[in-house]
């Protein structure tokens, strides 16, 4: 006898009601575990933007488009900050704090020593207490790269002591245990190499395209994929973390490792084993920027944004910029939308826009005076577009909430931290653009680190920490 659709759904509901669900503690444990991993990953993500000697460690976080931002019942915007303990000093006070990052409730910093070289120091972000200080790395300088990934700290120093100011040098990356500061692995790499991490693995792609994977839990477990004739040109993650002047960007993936070769082939590789799962021909040159999202590769090629289905269903042009323009970085931004920027190569004009992820139709577009864009960060559907001269915040409808000189990064979904060239620190609400002065940090000697709770800034011989108040 035919069933009524109501009856069928009622039966489906009863089936669902019979599903065993664990107590809330199981979700809490999973959340705690994810906090340990994701905080280490997220808060360490640093892309350096230098502004006349003052900066903010601008973080890239793994794509969090899964977490929507909804209307709230209270206004708990950041309204101030209070010091955490006193200034933190390392050694006899003559050591200089340089780059700092925050991960998993800790501040990790590089301190340089008066006689040369430097150390990595871990500080409890809630108390300011020094937890450990690493061995001395002879070539560690203010250019050091420092990145936290789940289960490891990566510190990078030049391979030779020769003073260099550009990125075109070889380097050594040391993998440190974040609990102790002990070095567990040292890897030599060349300019042009690429890193990617995910699933407890750290993978180095050499300049010739060969891959070597390291299991961070068992460093005896490694895998290699030799270079092929078709040199990999691009290593794709869902996001990336930076590491200062010296260090490479480290791509992040929560799935497979995806390589794009110079001829445009996409290789999907199991990051745990190095086994090639799939090869997809895209028929397009290597992209200038790309992310993997929802089983698709989104890549900026010339003035187009292209979407390649990694299951082999082909490539399509999702969006085409006007003639004379090029597309830049792209990020998922809200439900079914992608945000990207497009620019004229002469640097005259830049626009940020949101497009429909299914048909590429422009949802909103806004001109920006920011040039030489270096990062595009989204929280929900809100956009932070930063460049060498200024940073701008847009709401989910493309309305410019705030723009100005300085560097900026998200504190949380609703608040953006702004650091001016004079060391002034303020919070900008991503709801209405209102700016609240938080104070001034004089004498900055490196990039500050920011999390939802804490701001940490190096000021010469001291490290200073503040807790945000709401």
């Amino acid at each position, binding site marked *: 006898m035919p*069933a009524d659709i109501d009856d069928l759904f009622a039966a489906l509901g009863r089936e*669902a009601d019979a*599903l065993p669900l664990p107590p809330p503690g199981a*979700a*809490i444990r999973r959340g705690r575990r994810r906090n340990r991993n994701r905080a280490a990953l997220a808060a360490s993500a640093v892309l350096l933007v230098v502004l006349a000697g003052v900066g903010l460690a601008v973080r890239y976080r793994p794509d969090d488009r899964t977490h929507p931002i909804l209307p709230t019942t209270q206004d708990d915007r950041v309204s101030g900050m209070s010091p955490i303990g006193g200034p933190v000093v390392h050694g006899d006070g003559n050591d200089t704090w340089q780059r700092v990052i925050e991960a998993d409730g800790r501040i990790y910093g590089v301190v340089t020593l008066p006689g040369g070289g430097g150390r990595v120091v871990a500080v409890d972000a809630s108390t300011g207490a020094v937890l450990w200080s690493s061995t001395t790395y002879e070539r560690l300088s203010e250019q050091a790269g420092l990145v936290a990934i789940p289960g490891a700290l990566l510190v990078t120093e030049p391979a030779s002591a020769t003073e260099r100011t550009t990125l075109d040098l070889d380097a050594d990356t040391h993998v440190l245990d974040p609990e102790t500061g002990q070095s567990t692995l040292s890897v030599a790499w060349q300019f042009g190499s690429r890193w990617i991490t995910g699933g407890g693995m750290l993978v180095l792609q050499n300049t010739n395209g060969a891959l070597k994977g390291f299991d961070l839990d068992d460093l005896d477990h490694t895998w290699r994929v030799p270079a092929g004739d078709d040199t990999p040109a691009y290593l794709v993650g869902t996001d990336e973390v930076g590491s200062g002047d010296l260090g490479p960007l480290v791509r992040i993936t929560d799935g497979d490792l995806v390589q794009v070769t110079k001829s445009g082939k996409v290789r999907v590789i199991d990051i745990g084993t190095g086994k090639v799962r799939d090869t997809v021909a895209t028929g397009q040159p290597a992209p200038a920027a790309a992310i993997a999202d929802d089983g698709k590769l989104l890549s900026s090629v010339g003035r187009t944004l292209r979407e390649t289905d990694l299951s082999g269903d082909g490539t399509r042009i999702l969006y085409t910029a006007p003639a004379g323009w090029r597309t830049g970085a792209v990020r998922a931004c809200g439900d079914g939308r992608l945000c990207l920027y497009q620019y004229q190569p002469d640097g005259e004009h830049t626009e940020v826009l949101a497009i429909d992820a299914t048909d590429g139709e422009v949802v909103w577009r806004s001109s920006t005076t920011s040039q030489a864009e270096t990062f595009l960060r989204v929280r929900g559907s809100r956009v932070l577009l930063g460049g060498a001269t200024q940073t701008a915040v847009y709401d989910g409808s493309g309305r410019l909430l705030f723009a100005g000189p300085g560097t900026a990064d998200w504190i949380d979904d609703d608040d953006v931290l702004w650091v001016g060239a004079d060391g002034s620190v303020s919070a900008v609400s991503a709801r209405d653009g209102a700016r609240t002065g938080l104070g001034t940090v004089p004498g900055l000697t490196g990039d500050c680190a920011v999390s939802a709770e804490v701001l940490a800034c190096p000021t010469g011989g001291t490290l200073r920490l503040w807790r945000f108040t709401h």
Partner: protein
Amino acid sequence: MTMEFDDFYRDTARRLARYAYGLTGDPGEAQDLVQEAYARAWQRWRRVSAYEDPEAWLRLVVNRLSADRWRRIFVRRARAEAEPPPAPVDPPSENLVLLVRAMRELPDAQRRALALHYLLDRSIAEIAVETGAAQGTVKSWLSRGRSALAAALGDTIVPEGARRAR
């Protein structure tokens, strides 16, 4: 914080399981998604608890996770590594297997609208608010979804008339 979260979980988890089951049609995956959504809520509980409708936030997370093949794989992998498998459940009836199979073939928007309407008893107006779509669009989703289910289920289902208009 833990007490407040515990209460919220106990009040809402069963409804979220219904929703997740409706979207995925897979008991194990629904259990996974529910746990993952609450884990993410716990991670940012101060903010989520301040939302006017925290339960809607959970549904959006489940919605997005269920539509994201890569994350689904990742969630399962992470769960398998860190937690015991969820308790087994009895196999569904033949009619439900057909319904679930038909639901899986629907576009995400239609499947979501049907799950909200039939499993969580949400009105067209409420679905419109939650999805950000016009009420006419929601009606269209429901109508098309029911038609597609009817076509897929064939003789299994009573032809749809004007039903549950609210």
